[in-house]
């Protein structure tokens, strides 16, 4: 059988490519070998929380929202109220002194019109940033970016669905 130079070239090319493919998949193959013994038990254990009542489940919140709740209860609830209805204990003092109320997130007419970007601007820059009173202070320098994001995620749970 005669062997042409072209077929040799083809074979080398094919062999080389096959080699590269193997290399390419190599990572995952070797990875699988390493962890073959390391128990499915561990994986189950990681998620045992989902099978039992954990703090998130009790409040029907996602993990993000639960982190937001901790921040909200600490910083915001004194005025905006624990349920976001603008009835925190300090809201009555604001009403008496300045005739204003904190925003009511549970209000079914005004709240659904709120844009998330607007909430974000109000949190970061205070009431003045969205054309309201200065009695809502700016939190942009106190809370970090990720804290503000989870906070908004939690505040969204107060807003009634249209």
């Amino acid at each position, binding site marked *: 059988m005669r062997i042409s130079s072209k077929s040799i070239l083809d074979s080398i090319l094919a062999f080389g490519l096959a080699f590269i493919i193997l290399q390419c998949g190599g990572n995952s193959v070797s990875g699988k070998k390493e962890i073959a013994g390391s128990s499915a038990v561990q994986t189950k254990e990681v998620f045992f929380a989902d099978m*039992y009542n954990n703090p998130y489940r009790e409040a029907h919140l996602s*993990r993000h929202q639960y982190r937001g709740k901790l921040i909200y209860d600490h910083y915001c609830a004194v005025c905006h109220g624990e349920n976001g209805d603008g009835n925190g204990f300090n809201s009555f003092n604001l009403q008496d002194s300045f005739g204003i109320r904190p925003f009511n997130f549970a209000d079914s007419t005004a709240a659904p019109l709120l844009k998330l970007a607007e909430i974000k601007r109000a949190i970061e820059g205070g009431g003045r940033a969205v054309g309201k009173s200065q009695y809502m202070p700016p939190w942009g320098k106190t809370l*970090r970016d990720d804290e503000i994001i989870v906070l908004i995620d939690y505040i969204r749970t107060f807003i009634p669905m249209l």
Partner: protein
Amino acid sequence: MRTYRNCFNSLLLIVIPILFVGCSQDWQGYQNEYNQIIEEKALDENQPVKIGKKVISYEKLQVADYCISCHVGVTAIKMADAPQPIQSHPGEFLIKHDWQKIGCTICHGGNGGTLSKEDAHEGMLKAEMVQTSCYRCHPRSRQLPGARQLNHGQKLFTDLQCSGCHFVEGLVLPRLGPSLNGIGSRIERKWLRYWLKNPSEMMPNAKMPDFYLNDDNAGAVAAYLKTFKDQQLEGDPEPRKGDPAEGGNILRRARCISCHPFNGRGGFLGPDLGRLGNKTNRKFLFAKIKDPRRFEPNSTMPQFNFSDQQIADVADYLIDEYTDYDLVDIFNEDSLKAGNDSTTIEKGRKIYKELRCVNCHILDNGIEWMRIGPKLSDIGDKPLSEFDFGHSQIPGTRGAYIFEKIKNPRAFATADHPQKMPLFKLTNSDIYDLTLLLLSFNQKKISSPLFMAFPDTSLYRPQGEFGRLVEKFQCFSCHRINGRGFNLAYDLSIEGSRVSRQWLYDYLMVSYSLRPILVERMPIFNFTPQEAKTITDHIMANYTSGWIPRHPGEESSPQLIVQGKQLVKEKGCLACHILGDKGGYVAPSFTTGALAGDKLQAEWIYRWLKDPQKIVHGVLEPNYGLSDREALAITAYLMTLNHKDWR
């Protein structure tokens, strides 16, 4: 033949490029996406990444994590709302930890050495479960900022005295239960019996667990405990007659409610006093208030400077007012015999020994402390085969086992293996936190010179006369100083840089309420002038901060004060502070109570305005980002607020 080979080769040439595209890695896509987001949002803080595999490697800890090949954004700022996997890491963990050395898998588990998504995430710890890795590097006895659930679990573990029966390496605690020496002279027998049967029914905040005792057994233990009389207390003269009405006034003035709840309302440091009259007698109460550490050397109750007459008043008030007459009826109708005979007492002793009451309580009766529970040092990675699931149907995991065991201690008991653990009254989320703590007790320890050896600050003990006063008034029950103590009240570590000497002395002499919404208020100790002076001198001299200089050159001018007054109104400070008759109730008032000009030092106010959270972590006052000039103006204005000028 040749045609076939040509066909085959051509086929290969077509198929191979397709395969190539197919096996191009996920991480390339993520890195491209990351660069794209940076470009779109024009985020100057972040640099675009160079496409390629990325690895964190540190030889000494045997770290080689490829996680950041996909999670390119973890360390980037302003990527908090990017989609996974390029989202930045939440919280302050990466700021506090040297991530370039410890990598990801030391905390998160999983497999760092692979680039395949499924393999890398196998067995990975997510969200709050990551806290189970903290004790791989940090000592177990330490409260860790940021690990909320773990800290709560540890607090429960200490409070509930788990270490009385279970050994945990690195978490050796003393016995914290009240001493039972002389209990026969202190506590009524009927109370003891009902208490032993179901502690949380008798007292809402009882820490003692339920040992599933029946009437007879509880009665026997009560009879046995009743034999331990305190001869000295028995020999004390009967205290003088008090005036209950006056006692009530003293009780309210001294703010006992800051620590003690009464029928579930009030503080949480001391036991509930709502049924005190049913529980104990005047004589003991008198002796206890007079010297709280006479019966329990470790008691955290302060010694008040009451006169004997005042103590008698308080004792009479407590006995009169806080007796539950329904309970008296129940006690009277109780038909069970007292059972003073020796067989009952011997039976009580046997049960006492069997339940290992001695693991939490001190009692000089010859029974020694012996831990009968299993060792928990490595329960987090103990082989599952060593857990006895009994006939229970729960999922076969360690977490589920521990959760179920705490929730229902006898859940796994079988006829052959009865179980002895008592039932603690806990909510599900408490049990969850405790489970998380137990899962973190494992043998996967890492020791490396990389980690700082933290000094154990919990041993801080002031010396001399001040030390004696701290011991007498138990300041550490509420205040924290240099890392020791409870954070219920203000941290006094830099108090000397905060307040003025005169104010501090006056406040100690008359401890008025600082804020309207404060719940746990400082008790009135009736300090003598000498005691108040000693405390003031020590605080002003020793508890100062290096970065808040004492008595700076105060800059103040009429224009600055006017500007400051204007700023206070413009910035909306009155949402929380009261000025005149307007303002909120959240923060201290500018008009009544302790005024800034009387109480605080100018330099401290300035630093506080610039960054409140730097001084008190998590304080409600927002950081307004004031300029130097603005902060100076407000400081100058606040320093003009004092009682002299208001009058």
